[in-house]
């Protein structure tokens, strides 16, 4: 699985355990308020039960991320199921990607983009505030039922676009409130790891689609120029745009900027003079 910037939020430790083991995640002991596990490319947080906790945990792991445009955020967990019929008829252990979320208490709906090309059944998810039993006098729309989805989505959507957010739910019950065996929950999730990897790959492919003429290498070069010349944020923005003009207009690679990685700069004024020189050169290309 290629997983640049994959953020996974689970409610329960039992849901997280098979993922921690499969991806070789290590607990981040610098995080005290949240239970966070990481590898170089995956961050997993165990939020606890309920939409507020899920929103807090999601925010907690995404807030420190400087660049979220290539992140994918996934809520993974078990859910109840009510009245799924036809193509969506399901059994315990079936997994679904969520195409619509409905927050039962607020009445609000949320829609992740379903752009990823992965063979996976879809379903609607209703998020409720307390465990829901089929004997209760509450009716929810047909589909899946959990206690985290809407909180997770609202938080994730603060940082990411709807094409970067996915919810994958594994059916654990048909709305019978009972204490679930932790091992059993882990086994349910564990069986879905191959599909989860395929989903992550598909979402990663989407967020890594390139819409910029500047390559990663170009951006690194420009950052080196910025650091050496001590350019301001605004100057760096102008430099980057000039580089784009240069590449798009000329159809050629960027000119050699390497002298500006090392040129000695004694102050901001001198940096600005070099900046103007580079800009003129880029726009004259």
């Amino acid at each position, binding site marked *: 699985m290629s997983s640049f910037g994959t953020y996974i939020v689970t409610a329960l430790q039992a849901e997280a355990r098979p993922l921690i083991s499969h991806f070789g995640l290590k607990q981040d002991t610098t995080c005290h308020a949240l239970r966070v596990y990481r590898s170089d490319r995956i961050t997993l947080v165990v939020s606890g039960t309920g939409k507020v906790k899920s929103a807090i945990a999601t925010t907690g792991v995404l807030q420190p991320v400087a660049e979220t445009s290539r992140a994918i955020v996934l809520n993974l967990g078990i859910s109840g199921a009510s009245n799924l019929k036809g193509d969506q008829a399901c059994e315990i252990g079936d997994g679904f990607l969520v195409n619509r979320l409905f927050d039962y208490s607020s009445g609000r709906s949320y829609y992740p983009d*379903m*752009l990823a090309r992965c063979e996976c059944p*879809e379903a609607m998810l209703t998020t409720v505030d307390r465990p829901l039993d089929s004997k209760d006098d509450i009716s929810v729309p047909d589909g899946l039922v959990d206690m985290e989805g809407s909180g997770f989505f609202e938080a994730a959507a603060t940082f990411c676009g*709807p*094409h970067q957010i996915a919810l994958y739910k594994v059916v654990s019950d048909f709305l019978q409130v009972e204490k679930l065996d932790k091992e059993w929950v882990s086994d349910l999730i564990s069986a879905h790891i191959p599909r989860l990897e395929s989903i992550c790959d598909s979402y990663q492919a989407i967020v890594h689609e390139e819409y*910029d003429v500047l390559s990663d290498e170009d951006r690194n070069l420009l950052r080196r120029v910025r650091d050496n010349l001590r350019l301001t944020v605004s100057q760096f923005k102008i430099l980057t745009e000039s580089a784009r003009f240069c590449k798009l207009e000329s159809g050629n690679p960027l000119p050699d900027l390497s002298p500006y990685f090392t040129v000695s700069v004694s102050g901001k004024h001198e940096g600005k003079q070099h900046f103007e020189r580079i800009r003129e050169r880029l726009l004259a290309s």
Partner: protein
Amino acid sequence: MAKSLLKRFSQSTVVSVANYKSIFARPRQHFQTQKQSSNLILAVKKENHLYPGSGQVQGFGLENFFYNTLTLNCVYNCDYCYLQGMYPSANQVVFVNSIDFLDAARSAISARTNKAQPLYLCISYDTDLLAFENVVPYCREWITFASEQTDLLLEIRTKSASYRSISDLPVTDRVILAWTLSPEIVASKYERGAPPVHRRLESAASAAKKGWPVRLCFDPVITVPDWKSHYQKLIETTFDAIPCRSVRDATVGVFRMNAHYLDRIRKQRQNSDILYSRYEKEGENVSYSKEQRPEITSYIRDLLTRHLPPERIEVWT
């Protein structure tokens, strides 16, 4: 309409949405990402079934100039398209309450200010309806409607080669079929998904041969390297394919775009030179410089006047 579309796409997953804006207007959507796999949204438009025409489009001196939006977005993905900056989403919205749009048109015909002129209504203004005709047969519905109205002139603008989908309809002089034409070099580089120009010309020629009023739109003119010879060749090829007597009129316009839309597009994509040319900002719009614009349009107009009288050529500068 909704029922027939649901039947047609019976294999697709249907997600019910209370209001189309709750999915179309979500924040942080990525237009080009969605364009790779856009969804079809069926919706009801509750108001604004007609808008007054904008100054960005040629009105041929017709005062009662309106347009409507039967669908939002376009099946094509032209690099220079302002829809990328105008709409937050690339999903294709189809308004299924066509009866409300027809009623609005009827009312506007009655209420038009200049009774000496018909109501001039562009129905494929922010979209390409003919390209989508095999999914949503709105051109057919509106052509039939126009045939029954005495004071209506419709324009259906397209880059498609889909004339065949309406070729069985009786010709009416109340509908102008307008084809946007670009040199092959422009079409292949910037008009993603649109048919090559020779196929558009075949389609336009078939319509003209049957007697439809055909409009040729050289808009937007884009100054690719050696643009003069490319446009000269395009115009020659066009009038080789379509006799000038069969052409109702032609429009010419240089590339222009609302500056705010261009800014929004540049934030999401930085991979097309057409979005990064050295444009000049004038008022709310960006375009080629004040000096370039008349030169471009004069050149194209001169080429066109070899085939059409000047009064049948409308130029936007």
